[in-house]
């Protein structure tokens, strides 16, 4: 992609070049559980340990130059999935292969040089930037951490390049500004520049525009879109906004209670949804056109507690079309009969 990518340690890049067929990111049967804290009395009473099944068997692939959206309601496990990929949480099971290397098996010392190849953009640029850091400090700090750039002058050059790529032009004007002197969109672009400066292969974007004004959202999304098209970076975008996912992602994976229940090319998932949860979710997305007031299919209640995941299909208690077998059998992702592309998968017994 860029000079930035070549400047760093060769580990990640070398694996990618020797095995070009390996997808950028391959997550297999990922499970991340959190233990529910028990009080002293509960421990003395030998109450069983309870687990929150935050991510409960997630598998997907992401190619270079691709943008995939992980969508779902809060508590569905989409953010935990990202945190597990980043190494912030250890998974209980599964593998996370980045350029073929399984990150789960690496210890902290060997993981560290790989960290620069996967970078994160957070939801709130008002909180993710240190208010006492000038733009230059925020963008140069990752280079200091990873030992990039031999001199201040070189680091500044790289920072300017990253800011320009993030659409802050002319970058020199912004270098000495503080976050409070920037608009929300500009702040998010600084956060993106701080991620780009390390030349990442994979960018995780957690609700990258939900805190921004409507008028500037499209700009930040178009920037992410251009970045992955120009380079060979892959982007995993976590969002609850299906309209954004439909417009900007190549593929959409819909999560429910720790599982991907449907995934496929964005247009197929949006225009030809197969899983009843996806259908319900799409029906409640407000449309811009007041004439498109279709009757929303409102599911009652809220996502069940991930401590006690329903037996059988985890969606069956809220499913409008559930049958008896849904209570017994846990459906796996498969090609639905109504799909128009083999890349489309849904986890429902009835499709």
């Amino acid at each position, binding site marked *: 992609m860029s000079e930035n990518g070549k400047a760093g340690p060769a580990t990640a890049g070398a694996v990618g070049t020797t095995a070009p067929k390996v997808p950028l990111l391959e997550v297999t049967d990922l499970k991340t559980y959190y233990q529910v804290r028990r009080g002293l009395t509960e421990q003395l009473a030998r109450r069983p340990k309870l687990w929150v099944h935050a991510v409960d068997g997630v598998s997907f692939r992401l190619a270079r130059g691709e943008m995939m959206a992980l969508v779902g309601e809060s508590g569905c496990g989409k953010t935990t999935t990202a945190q597990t990929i980043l190494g912030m949480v250890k998974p209980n099971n599964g593998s996370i292969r980045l350029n073929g290397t399984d990150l789960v098996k690496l210890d902290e010392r060997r993981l560290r040089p790989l960290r620069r190849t996967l970078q994160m953009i957070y939801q709130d640029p008002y909180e993710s930037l240190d208010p006492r850091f000038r733009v230059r400090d925020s963008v140069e700090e990752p280079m200091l951490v990873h030992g990039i750039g031999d001199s201040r002058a070189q680091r500044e050059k790289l920072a300017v390049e990253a800011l320009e790529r993030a659409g802050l032009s002319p970058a020199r004007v912004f270098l000495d500004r503080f976050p409070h002197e920037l608009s929300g969109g500009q702040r998010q672009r600084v956060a993106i520049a701080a991620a780009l400066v390390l030349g990442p292969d994979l960018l995780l974007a957690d609700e990258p525009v939900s805190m921004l004004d409507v*008028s*500037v959202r499209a700009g930040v999304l178009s920037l992410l879109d251009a970045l992955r098209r120009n380079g060979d970076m892959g982007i995993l975008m976590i969002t609850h906004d299906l309209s954004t996912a439909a417009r900007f992602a190549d593929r959409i994976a819909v999560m429910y209670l720790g599982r991907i229940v449907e995934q496929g090319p964005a247009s197929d998932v949006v225009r030809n949804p197969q899983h009843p949860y996806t259908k319900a979710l*799409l029906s409640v997305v407000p449309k811009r056109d007041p004439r498109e007031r279709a009757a*929303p299919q*409102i599911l009652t209640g809220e996502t069940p507690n991930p401590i006690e995941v329903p037996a059988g299909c985890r969606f069956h208690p809220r499913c409008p079309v559930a049958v008896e077998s849904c209570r017994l059998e846990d459906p796996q992702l498969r090609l639905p009969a109504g799909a128009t592309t083999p890349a489309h998968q849904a986890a429902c017994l009835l499709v």
Partner: protein
Amino acid sequence: MSLLEVTGLHVWFEPPHAAEVHAVQGVSFALDAGERFGLVGESGCGKTTTILALMGLLPPNSSAAGEVLINGQNILAGGEDSVQPYRWKDVAMVFQGAMNALNPVKKVGWQIAEPMAFHGVAQGATARKRAGELLEMVGIPAAAGERYPHEFSGGMRQRAAIAMALACEPKILLADEPTTALDVMVQAQILELLTGLSRDLGLALVLVTHDLPVVAQVCERAAVMYAGEIVEAGPTDTLYHAPRHPYTRLLFAATPDLYGQDAVISIPGAPPRLDSEVAGCPFRPRCDVPLERCADEHPDLRLVGAAHCAACHRNDLVVAP
């Protein structure tokens, strides 16, 4: 006579050690019973300030001018004394982030009954009974009134906040970003609840949001605010299909749609600062089709169609049908 009539509302803030900010600059609109009206715009456009003024809840460093008529009575005429009798009894509000504004150490039912006692609507057992009825009305079992806010999910807390606003049977409900922090499915539930309340109780609803699709789905009419002014107002259908202000058109174009085919484009630039007088049209620096006169001539809000007005000089070029 409309139920609510706002005429020429102005609000100024006087921040310490800084220039006066003219946050709301002559906003006018009217609303009838059972009507659902949307107030949309970017952050800082004055939409929240406008409805806080209707409730007489502006902070002490602010001043307001203009008329807010409820059933013909100007509630802004005599400061707090003239607003107080109307607040919560005629006009009530669901605040932004209301679901996080419940008192964590009081039971939900008690919190819903409190405004009834304060405004002399009901006391003691009557108030508690009515709190239970209100909870049922917003889709929560009455018995849940005995629980604390932390035992509620986000969606339930928002419903409780709506029940609280309905405690004194208001005629007008102001809802400030009522679904912003909620998931789409819960958002759909809350929007359906608000629509149902306005239909069944004849409640006039003012929905304040930055989310155009939410307004498009819920409201019959809407006003688009920019830099403290209403720049276009009319039926939501007309605003989407035949906007007469570039800002409205660009705002829709910047909003991704599930099935939309056209490119999603952001609006360059940022709204003007409101601490000094803006010369000409406030949207001119961001406008894609400015005229020469826009630089120094301020466009006024004018009728451009049936119940449709816009503040853009371009409308002078079009011969009215």
